[in-house]
Structures are given as structure tokens and as C-alpha cells.
């Protein structure tokens, strides 16, 4: 009797380990997903107001990460105490956000705005051009080799459990991303600018005819999308700890995919899409193998889009007559 019962506790233990392993992967996935979502917002917001896939967005974030790296060195953050480190990180988020936001507005003014009435492919190809220009600036800025981004935060686990890890870096992602997303949703839903943005995204001519300065709304959208990307670049550096001049391409692609998966043009869709992609990436890396991750993510994307072409939270588009 006793002997036959004996193996059970062991089974229990291994079960609880595998359950905890699963939760751990989910936690990693959600944290990564939050970062992807922050980048995806930049794609979806710009698409929402002017219908442009801003292919330079990933590389904009790469430039933000370059600035963050330079600022960490200039401010001597690697040697700062805990309080100064957190203040330094807040400053980095602010400065890189302003930098990416302003750069995004400048690119819109110089490159996309003159093409506002041109066929859609013209600004799209220009965006690819801007992406290459940014990459070259990044190459010039930090060189061709990957650069390691200093570990500014302690890696101590914040959870009481041994098998479930959630450290300061993970917490950083949450405390930067969540307020930014809440702020964005408040801005879009409750402010005058937000209402103007929604109006412009639905009908530019009608928006102009109620007295909205459409160009200013578009510029504000580029700024906000760029600002979120700049914040993401700082977190990326601190979280992944490696940056390189080509990082914009793959990260941009995942974020763009997240935006499409969630329903391009939809702000909650971009957040959901980011979370889904983060989860799928983490789980497939853990259970199937890292090298299959890309294939699995995109296979799921294709399957979802076959059944829901408008994305998870997108709306079915009907062509205007």
C-alpha cells in the first residue's frame, strides 16, 4: 500500500515544477510582450491617422538606444547609487523619448508630408529609405559590432519563490510601460487632442472642416509614437543589455507584426498583439526550441489572419464609395 503511494509526492513535485516553469515562461513572455507593445503602438498610431506603415520606426528606436548608451556613459550611471540610478533611468526615458519623438516629427515634415497626396507606395518606399538612413547613422554612432548595455539594476529576485523569477529589470518594464499605456489611453479618450486624433483618423476632410489643424494632429501623433518608442529603447537596453545598429529591423518586424495581429490602427489591439507575440515567443522558445520561434510566431500570425484578416481587435474595413 505505502509503497505504491510513495511515488506520488515526487510526481506532485515535478508537476509543480513544470507548472512553475510554465508560469515563469508566461511572465517572461508578458514582460517581453509589453516591450513589443510599446513599439507596436508607434506603428499603429501613425497608420491610424495617415495610413502609412512607418518602416523606419524600428530603426528610430535603435537610434534611441544609441542615445541611451551615450547618455549612460556621459552621466556615469554605471557607478551611481540606487537612488541616482532610478533618477537617471527616468531622465533617460524622458530624453530618449523627446529625442525619438522630435526626430519622428522631423522625418514626417521632411519626408512623408510632401507625399501626403501621393499614391500610398511613395511614402512607404520613402519610409524604407529612412530606415536605411537611420541604420547608417546608427552604424556611424556605435560602430558595427554589438555593444553591451551596462547592467544598471541588481538582478536579485523580487519574488519569495525560488523557481519563479521576477527581478528589478522585469519590474522596470512594468513601471515604465503600464503608466505610459494608461496615459496614452487617457489622452486618446479624454483630451481635446485625442478627440482630434480620432476624428482625423476617421475622415481628414471632415476633421479640417470642423476646425481641426490636421497637420498639427498628424505631427502630434508622430511625436507620441516616437516618444513611446524612445522610452522602449531605454528599457530595451536595460532589459536585453545588448544593442546594435541592426536591432531595429527584427524588433521593428515583431512589433509591426504585433500591430497587424491586434488590428492595425487599433491602440488596444497593438497592446494585445504585443502580449500575444511575447507569450508565443517565450513559450515556443521554452517548449519547442529557440530556432523555431520565428517560424512559429509567423505561422500563428498567418493562421489568425486567414480567419480574421482585420486582426484581433481591428474592424472590418469597407472601402469608401
Amino acid at each position, binding site marked *: 500500500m505505502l509503497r505504491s503511494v510513495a511515488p506520488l509526492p515526487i510526481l506532485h513535485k515535478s508537476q509543480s515544477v513544470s507548472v512553475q516553469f510554465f508560469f515563469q515562461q508566461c511572465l517572461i513572455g508578458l514582460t517581453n510582450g509589453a516591450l513589443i507593445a510599446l513599439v507596436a503602438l508607434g506603428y499603429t498610431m501613425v497608420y491610424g491617422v495617415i495610413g502609412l506603415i512607418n518602416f523606419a520606426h524600428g530603426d528610430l528606436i535603435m537610434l534611441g538606444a544609441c542615445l541611451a548608451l551615450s547618455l549612460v556613459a556621459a552621466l556615469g550611471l554605471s557607478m551611481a547609487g540606487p537612488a541616482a540610478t532610478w533618477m537617471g533611468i527616468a531622465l533617460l526615458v524622458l530624453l530618449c523619448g523627446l529625442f525619438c519623438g522630435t526626430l519622428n516629427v522631423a522625418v514626417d515634415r521632411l519626408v512623408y508630408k510632401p507625399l501626403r497626396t501621393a499614391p500610398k507606395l511613395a511614402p512607404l518606399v520613402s519610409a524604407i529609405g529612412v530606415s536605411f538612413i537611420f541604420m547608417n547613422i546608427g552604424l556611424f554612432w556605435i560602430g558595427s559590432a554589438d555593444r553591451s548595455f551596462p547592467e544598471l539594476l541588481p538582478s536579485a529576485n523580487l519574488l519569495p519563490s525560488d523557481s519563479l523569477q521576477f527581478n528589478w529589470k522585469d519590474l522596470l518594464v512594468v513601471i515604465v510601460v503600464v503608466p505610459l499605456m494608461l496615459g496614452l489611453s487617457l489622452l486618446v479618450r479624454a483630451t481635446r487632442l485625442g478627440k482630434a486624433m480620432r476624428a482625423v483618423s476617421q*475622415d481628414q476632410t471632415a476633421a479640417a472642416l470642423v476646425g481641426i489643424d490636421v497637420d498639427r494632429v498628424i505631427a502630434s501623433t508622430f511625436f507620441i509614437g516616437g516618444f513611446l518608442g524612445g522610452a522602449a529603447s531605454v528599457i530595451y537596453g536595460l532589459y536585453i543589455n545588448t544593442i546594435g545598429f541592426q536591432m531595429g529591423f527584427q524588433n521593428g518586424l515583431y512589433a509591426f507584426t504585433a500591430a497587424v495581429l491586434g488590428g492595425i490602427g487599433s491602440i488596444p489591439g497593438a497592446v494585445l498583439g504585443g502580449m500575444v507575440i511575447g507569450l508565443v515567443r517565450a513559450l515556443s522558445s521554452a517548449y519547442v526550441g529557440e530556432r523555431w520561434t520565428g517560424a512559429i510566431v509567423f505561422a500563428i500570425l498567418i493562421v489568425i489572419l486567414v480567419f480574421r484578416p482585420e486582426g484581433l481587435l481591428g474592424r472590418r474595413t469597407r472601402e469608401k464609395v
Partner: protein
Amino acid sequence: MPMLEVHEVEAGYGPIRALDRVSLEVQEGELVAIIGANGAGKTTLLMAISGIVPVRSGEVRFRGTPINGLQPHQIVRLGIGHSPEGRRIFPRLTVRENLELGGFTQPNSSQLKRDIDEACGLFPVLGERMGQLGGTLSGGEQQMLALGRALVGRPKLLMLDEPSLGLAPLIVTKIFEVIAGLSSRGIAVVLVEQNAYAALKLATRGYVLETGRVTLTGSGKDLAADVRVQDAYLGE
């Protein structure tokens, strides 16, 4: 001095010249009808006055000041409202948000609230549908919303493009009633209409536009009685 003066205006799209030296005037408080066949340039004329379609030559003056070359939102802020063809309400915003956007240039929020209440007084159905998305309204309700949205902007001159198009006769009557009442509120109106008979009956003066040119002008009564107008537009 006329309130609105359009002087020898040319405008178009690419190689197409949609307006060929069009001139017209609107006096303070006047209701001016513009009639003409499809493609005559009526919508382009309103779009050119609003700054959506660029004026290539000629001049548009509002109360003596040239306004061609200004941005559309600047022209709206001068007091020129424009309810465009096809209503173009914001389909995924609520009725309330649509009306609030009509008062986008109104800095005083309690005034905006009064203006929205007033629009709902003209069209009670809007008050009943405040929380509903604009795109879920019927065609007639959408037209009322478009008109209400334009009025919340407190225009001094309101341009209406085909407000009766595709609507049931009962609703057309209601819409024209409201339009007729605008001059008593001191709002000058430019009314573009396919329904030439109804428009000319309401109008102090009218213009007939044909392939981008003004071919006839006169009082509403005279134009309605004109044989050429009757043959071409009144379907008699």
C-alpha cells in the same frame, strides 16, 4: 460690402479645370442657392471656398479679407461652416462626440454645452441618440447630425452641400425647415442642391453652374420661373 465674395476663381484637380472664373457674392443673412447638374463644379466651389481644394487664380474674400491660401481650419475659425457632401460625420465617434467636435473651435465649454443643447432642440432625435455611434444612425439622422455639428460651430456663413440627397420626403421637409430658419438666426447660407425647386423656393438669390461656369443668376423666384432653368433642372 458683401459677406462672401468669390471673384473669378479657377480651381481643379490635376489637368481638370473644375471651376472656370466663377464669381458670386453672398450678402449678410442671405440664403443663396447654387444649382446645376452633376459635375458642374458645385462641390468643388464649396471646397475651394473652404480651402480644401486650392484656388489656382482669382480671389475669395470674407468680409473684405482675402482667404484663399489659408488652411481649412483657419477658414473655419473665421466663421465659415461647411457641411460637406455625403454628410461625412465621424462614424466611429458617438453622436455627442460628433457634436462636440463641431464646436472644436469653441473655447468656452459651458457655451459649447448650450450650443449642443440647442442643436438637439432643433433635432430632438440627436438628443435621444447621444451615446450611439454616428455610423449606426439612419441616413436622415446622419444628415441631422451633420447639420447639427455644423451649427455647433456657430458659423456666420454656412455652406451646405446636398443636404437632402437620398433622404425620405418627410425628413427633407424637416431639414429644409431648419435651413429656412437659419437666416432668422443671422446665419447666411450657401445651399448646393440637386433638388433645385426646393432650393430656389427658399433662396433669396441663386446661381446656375454649368461645366464650371456661372451661366445664370437672379432672385430665387426669377430663376424658378426661368424657362431655361425649368427645362434643365426642374424636370417640367
